[in-house]
């Protein structure tokens, strides 16, 4: 019955578990196990019974309270915002690094052609800039 337990745990994953939730989880696990037992008594194999039980349970939103569902969405949003920040950080550091290498090569080996490294660096800047734009958009989305 590990499959049922982990199914229930997954459902509550995005939520801060209160004492009440813990109780709900226990009861829900029992409800689902009862169904699996019933199906097994009717002659179904355990694996099939578990599959059927999980399948007929429906979407997570069918179970979640509207309030709970809202909380879950909010949690999800913060997570993506964090992702956007990480993306931006990665792009900025990479841009600095690549521009630095280009500048070094330009200064040391190809100074005769002038400071040409500025041109690819300007192009490269669009990478972190576009991610900054995406991040700010995401931020104003989650403020409302």
């Amino acid at each position, binding site marked *: 019955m590990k499959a049922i337990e982990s199914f229930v745990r997954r459902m509550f994953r995005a939520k801060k578990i209160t004492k009440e939730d813990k109780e*709900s989880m226990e*009861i*829900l696990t*029992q*409800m689902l196990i*009862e*169904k699996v*037992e*019933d199906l097994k*008594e009717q002659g179904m194999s355990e694996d099939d019974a578990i599959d059927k039980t999980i399948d*007929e*349970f*429906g*979407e*997570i939103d*069918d*179970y*979640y*309270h509207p309030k709970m569902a809202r909380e879950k969405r909010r949690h999800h949003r913060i997570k993506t915002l964090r992702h956007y920040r990480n993306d931006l950080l990665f792009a900025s550091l990479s841009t600095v690094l690549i521009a630095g290498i280009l500048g070094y090569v330009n200064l040391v080996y190809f100074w005769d052609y002038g400071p040409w490294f500025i041109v690819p660096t300007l192009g490269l800047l669009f990478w972190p800039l576009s991610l900054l734009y995406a991040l700010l958009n995401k931020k104003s989305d989650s403020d409302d």
Partner: protein
Amino acid sequence: MAISSDILRGHMEPVILKLIIEKDRYAYEIANEIQSRTAASFSVKEGTLYALVQRLERKELIRSYIGTKSHGGRRRYYAITPLGKAYYHEKIKEWKELKTIMSQLLEGDHESD
């Protein structure tokens, strides 16, 4: 005919209460009973149903106990409380009124040309 589950969802509480008033039942038994009584024309998602059962217990309209072994496994059975019974009768009265009003409005032959 598949009726939108949203419409029926709002009326699920008295249905669950009625099934529990008939006799003490466990959660899957309730889901099963709904399926067979509607000849499978309506299946409420079990997730919705189980959430409702838990909510009814929190509102003390039903109470639960663990059945004895002779019931077949150790199942959590739900029984009605006096409060639940009162709430059920109130809802039935409401439902009958609504039914009368709706049939007066929708089935009356008042079409004019």
